[in-house]
């Protein structure tokens, strides 16, 4: 008797509630320009672009194991890209957003060529150097506005209400798109490949996974996302300057958000964005103190709470709003039949019970845990 095909289950209990709820939230958010104030919309853009950026960094670090401290390069390229396309090429500003993303992805190719030679911490600093190079190049190129920057004036031709609403919807689109993109990648074969690379690159390569292509693909996608988001951010701000557009603070934003929320999950960065954004608003009167606070929390989290806040919650209540794992469903009838002792089969099915365990950042198998004492 040959075994019947196993039924692969994707939904979790939490996601069955979560997904419809998320749809409602998104619908409400989309309607904001109809009833919200100008300020509220601007705040919304700030939050939504933060979510988008966080997911793009999460994609790189949490799923491909590439720790970049240089994504601000692509934020800046996206910003200047949208400016150049809108001001110099006469492209409609809102069409320019995805195009700016493509420009960023184009620059990401040679960047990868250089930085992929490095590993770990050296890769991180390498990406930082490249971002600096971009910043310095832009400062030194006259027609980009040099050190004092450039303004996006062509947007001014559009009526203010329309403009603000459009920018807001673009922000919503980028955020939604980022989450969707990450979700789709992970449900695909590419996602399995990424998880394998993240856990053990050598083993993955040995199994035939094209690690370079997978990593490059993720790197380009992340650059695209950062570029498009940068374009939206600066359509909101209307003035692009090298110091701001290529600022290290974009990386700080992305990294802290994801680390506090939880690396390697889809829900984590969203949670982190809520926290980061909340703290930013709360402490807005205190200058840069919020960065000191958030930085400290992130640094401590990175060492003592690697799964982030979402990881902690996940462990307690086994939530997973965006199911990306493939679980063998042992409850369905087809699977019960397949699970019966079978003289032809060799190994028993996986005895998974309940929700899958928390996904987490790549922590290589630790040496025998007593061998090094810390402190």
């Amino acid at each position, binding site marked *: 008797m040959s075994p019947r095909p196993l039924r692969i289950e994707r939904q979790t209990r939490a996601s069955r509630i979560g997904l419809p709820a998320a749809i409602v939230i998104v619908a409400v958010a989309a309607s904001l320009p109809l009833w919200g104030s100008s300020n509220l919309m601007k705040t919304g853009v700030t939050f939504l672009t933060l979510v988008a950026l966080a997911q793009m960094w999460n994609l790189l670090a949490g799923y491909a194991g590439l720790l970049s401290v240089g994504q601000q390069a692509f934020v800046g390229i996206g910003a200047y890209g949208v400016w150049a396309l809108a001001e110099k090429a006469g492209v409609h500003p809102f069409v320019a957003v995805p195009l700016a993303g493509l420009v960023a992805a184009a620059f990401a190719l040679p960047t990868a060529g250089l930085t992929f030679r490095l590993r770990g911490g050296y890769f991180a600093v390498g990406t930082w150097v490249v971002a600096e190079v971009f910043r310095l190049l832009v400062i030194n190129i006259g027609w980009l506005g040099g050190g004092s920057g450039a303004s996006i004036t062509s947007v001014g031709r559009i009526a203010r209400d329309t403009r603000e609403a459009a920018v807001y919807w673009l922000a919503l689109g980028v955020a939604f798109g980022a989450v969707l993109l990450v979700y789709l990648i992970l449900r695909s074969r590419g996602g399995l490949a990424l998880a394998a690379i993240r856990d053990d690159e050598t083993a993955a390569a040995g199994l035939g996974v094209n690690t370079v292509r997978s990593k490059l693909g993720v790197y380009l996608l992340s650059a695209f996302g950062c570029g498009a988001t940068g374009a939206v951010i600066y359509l909101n701000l209307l003035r692009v300057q090298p110091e701001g557009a290529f600022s290290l603070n974009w990386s700080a934003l992305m990294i802290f958000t994801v680390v506090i929320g939880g690396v390697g999950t889809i829900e984590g960065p969203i949670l982190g964005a809520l926290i980061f954004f909340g703290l930013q608003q709360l402490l807005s009167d205190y200058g840069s103190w919020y960065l000191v606070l958030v930085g400290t929390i992130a640094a401590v989290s990175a060492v003592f709470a690697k799964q982030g806040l979402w990881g902690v919650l996940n462990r307690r209540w086994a939530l997973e709003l965006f199911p990306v794992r493939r679980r063998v469903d042992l409850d369905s009838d087809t699977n019960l039949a397949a699970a019966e002792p079978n003289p032809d089969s060799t190994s028993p099915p996986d005895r998974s019970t309940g929700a899958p365990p928390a996904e987490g950042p790549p922590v290589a*198998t*630790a040496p*025998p*845990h*007593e*061998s090094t*004492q810390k402190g």
Partner: protein
Amino acid sequence: MIHVDPAEAGTAAGVLNASPDPRGGVQTSPMAGSLLEVEGASTGYGSFQALFDVSLRVDEGETLAVIGANGAGKSTLLKTICGLLRTDDNTVRFDGRPIGSLPAHKRVGLGISLVPEGRLVFPSLTVYENLLVGGHSRRTGPWSVDKVRDLFPLLNRLMNKQAAHLSGGEQQALAIGRGLMANPRLLLLDEVSLGLAPIVVAELYRAIPRIVAEGTTLIIVEQDIGQAVAVADRIVCLLEGRVVLRGRPDEVTREQISAAYFGV
């Protein structure tokens, strides 16, 4: 002395059920202090348990051979003794003192030195520097660089060579010499013969009697039974994390050892 139930003599069960005779043996009775006592060690790696309630004792000046197949838990046992794996205080007692939770680097100061599996010499350091690092703990005793060179003359012309460029046998000699530089009371040798040609192994084992002559207590872990049993005062055999055989070489036959080793 091994005590075997006459009804089970010559059978695997007889071997597996054998227990140390409390009256016999060259060594002092368990009442007197042993140099090392391991009691109920059940250490492992993360969620993987490698030892199951392992107990043994070694008296000062003795040479104990711990044999067993791959994965039997021999290295885990040595790591537990030397401190790379830590347990409850009382699980490991050295000269009467509970040291189970003490980290490895502190146990070196007490006189326990491990020559690890795979040699683990410091590749970027020269042979001479490797030996000097061996003496980092600054314990006093008979061993010095000169005495190690005397023990392993092959190291003489290699003194300024980087350890990475040594052959397997040379690295093993260096590793043993480095372990001796800590002037240990208890020297642990983990799979000295691994990956080496028999002739090289034989030469390394020729150094053992000279080490014993200095009064050093030895625990030798080996997959290769021959050499280990030849130099040992007592043997312990592990199988899948448990002690399945204890005794002196003159009391245990090759068949009994094989049976215990393979668990048949």
